[in-house]
């Protein structure tokens, strides 16, 4: 082992020990209330069969209704936070799917351990970048209703069935008054080590950026930043980048929303749905060009309505297919780690060792 790597590991270990004393707060892991399964079930008309049907699961077992699908993580990262996250994952019994990240600080050991947990348990991450971010389910979204293109002035169009089977439930859900995330004002941004955890998400999105009230100086030095970058690239691709890899100069916070592995998995799982939507998009182009040739006279415009409707329906099916694929992967990941039950000490040791080893290896790349 190289001396520099040993030093880095010692520094990291020291940070882990010292951090709790110097940090203003350990991270808080708070349930996003609307994401409790009992609050999500109304989206499925309170019908477990609709829930199982949407996720195409043959196991008729709901997650515990009091458990949370999403957590918001707030504060300054410190020692023991990865352990706390593991506790939350285990408590969720596989139902925890999304982490909203609104924390800052630097503690590479804890960051790495949390990142390993996030990737191993196939969690999605969302970076909070300012107050006002609202929760919305990660498995479906509301589709705009079809705009009638017929020439029936003065009367309502014939009722159009929703594009997604969950549209009606989501419409009611959107009326909830508690959707705004409980973000502490002083930690309303994902900063520094938060991005290491965010990058580990299998599907990682970020809220629209707001400018922080005050620019906080980065809490990590250049060596730590590089160690983070290398570690994150390994977590993402399963291989170490070359020391002079041009990708390393790009900030991980600008990464694509889903990983290369997830892209492969989604394309495999939803190949049929994607093919249909591509085909419909092609048909629409032909119909559109024909309408354009007729200068968009009323009958040709009306003729586009069925295709646009079919395209949106196909889009909603892709969305569902992606939700199912992510769900299956996450459930499988949980079952792999906790076949009959979760052995917390064993899991803790396994993931800590894995993260520490990766950090050590990252430190060796010059």
């Amino acid at each position: 082992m190289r001396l520099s790597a040993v030093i880095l590991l010692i520094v990291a270990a020291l940070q882990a020990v010292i951090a709790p004393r110097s940090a203003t707060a350990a991270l808080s892991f708070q349930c996003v209330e609307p994401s409790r399964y009992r609050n999500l079930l109304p989206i499925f008309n309170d019908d477990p069969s609709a829930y199982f049907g949407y996720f195409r699961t043959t196991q008729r077992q709901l997650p515990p209704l009091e458990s949370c699908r999403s957590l918001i993580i707030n504060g300054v990262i410190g020692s023991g936070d990865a352990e706390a996250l593991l506790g939350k994952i285990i408590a969720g019994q596989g139902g925890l799917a999304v982490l909203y990240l609104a924390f800052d600080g630097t503690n590479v050991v804890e960051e790495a351990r949390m990142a390993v947990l996030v990737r191993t348990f196939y969690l999605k991450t969302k970076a909070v970048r300012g107050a006002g971010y609202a929760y919305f389910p990660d498995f479906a979204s509301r589709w705009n209703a079809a705009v009638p293109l017929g020439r029936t002035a003065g009367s309502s169009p014939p009722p159009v069935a929703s594009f997604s089977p969950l549209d009606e439930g989501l419409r009611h859900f959107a009326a909830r008054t508690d959707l705004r995330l409980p973000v502490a004002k002083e930690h309303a941004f994902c900063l520094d080590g938060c991005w290491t955890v965010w990058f580990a998400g299998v599907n990682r999105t970020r809220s629209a950026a707001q400018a922080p009230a005050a620019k906080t100086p980065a809490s990590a030095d250049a060596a730590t930043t590089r160690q983070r970058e290398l570690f994150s690239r390994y977590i993402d691709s399963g291989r170490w980048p070359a020391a002079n890899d041009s990708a390393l100069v790009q900030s991980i916070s600008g990464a694509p929303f889903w990983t290369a592995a997830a892209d492969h998995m989604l394309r495999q799982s939803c190949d049929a749905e994607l093919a249909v939507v591509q085909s419909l998009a092609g048909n629409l182009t032909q119909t559109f060009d024909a309408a354009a040739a007729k200068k968009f006279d009323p009958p040709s415009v009306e003729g586009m309505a069925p295709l646009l409707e079919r395209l949106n329906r196909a889009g909603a099916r892709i969305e569902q297919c992606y939700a199912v694929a992510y769900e299956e992967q996450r459930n499988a990941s949980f079952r792999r780690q906790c076949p009959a039950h979760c052995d917390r000490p064993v899991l803790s040791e396994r993931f800590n060792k894995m993260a520490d080893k990766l950090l050590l290896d990252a430190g060796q790349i010059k």
Partner: protein
Amino acid sequence: MRRIAYVLATLAIGWFFAVNHAAALDVSCIEASRYKYLFQLFGGDTRKFIAYFNLPAGQLPRPEYCRAALLDGGLSSDEDVTKVIKIIGDNHGWLATLYLRSGGGLVRVGVGIGILARNFWLKTYAASQRRGIMDYQPDFAVPPPDKLPITDLIPDNAPTLAGWQAYRASIAKLPPIKMGGSEMFCASACTQIHAGGIDRKGISRVHRASGNAKTLLATNEGLIGTDDFLVSFYRFMDAGPDFMRMYLLTTSATTTPLPISRFARHVSDVLAQKCGADADQLARLEAQIDASVADFGSQITFYGPSINLEHLRTMAARVRMRRMAAEQCVAAINEAERLTAYAGLCQNGCDQKKLNSLIVQKRNDIQKTIR
């Protein structure tokens, strides 16, 4: 006999039902609609303005004239009708649009202004707001898309992107018209004005009239008479079957928000025939494509591979270009119609008495159509 009873009851009670006791109506020019600003859309070139509307050479509004007025407040007396006549006269036929911000008031006043709107060939827009500020948009053109499709050209004389930018810059310092987010912008008796417009936009909030006569029997008969009249009025204005149905179905204690069809059916047919496209239908097509872009873009692309959204965006832009031409055609037809109507009704200035007689006559005509 029953008909006569209804008519009497209507005249005695129905016309005086205040469904919403709001402050008096304020009728004012919308500053951003003064022609001196609107000319900026054409780069300040009034010849292009004339060409866009296909007007006879030299037929121009004075720069200070207003194209749009805001009707703000309750419909509480016949004075309100007078105020509308005055602003029409003050602008010598160049007033084209009434923006409506009213919770309602007297049915008689709403019907009166609605009849004026139709006969002066005015547009009626239920006011809407964006971030607490009333949203005013010139009524006769749509802006080009931000990215022009290479396949289409901007119609001759239509305002260009530069023109829209110049217009927006010219009105940037005007005081904004503030609006609360929870206001009912056009409700109750205001919907009669909205229905009277020849080009209608925005949401109307309808409900049955209410009132209180000496006895419940008289109240009931009076209100049924009002119902009969208003259903006929809405039919006459071609507000659409949903409008009439929801008017009858909605209790006076609440309101039902309804989009109103942009044009009366026969007007829509003629415009589509003359312009070779239905401007309103094209607007809906563009909205549908935009919605698809938004749905695919904001939802699927967060989770995994999607379709080529750029292609859909280009489609929306091409529809917009066609809309620009269609709206220009509609604008020219409406402009000619409105100026002709004004010349017929206010040849030597707007005569209050003559116009009040017109309202009574049209009201009686509608009364005769009660089924």
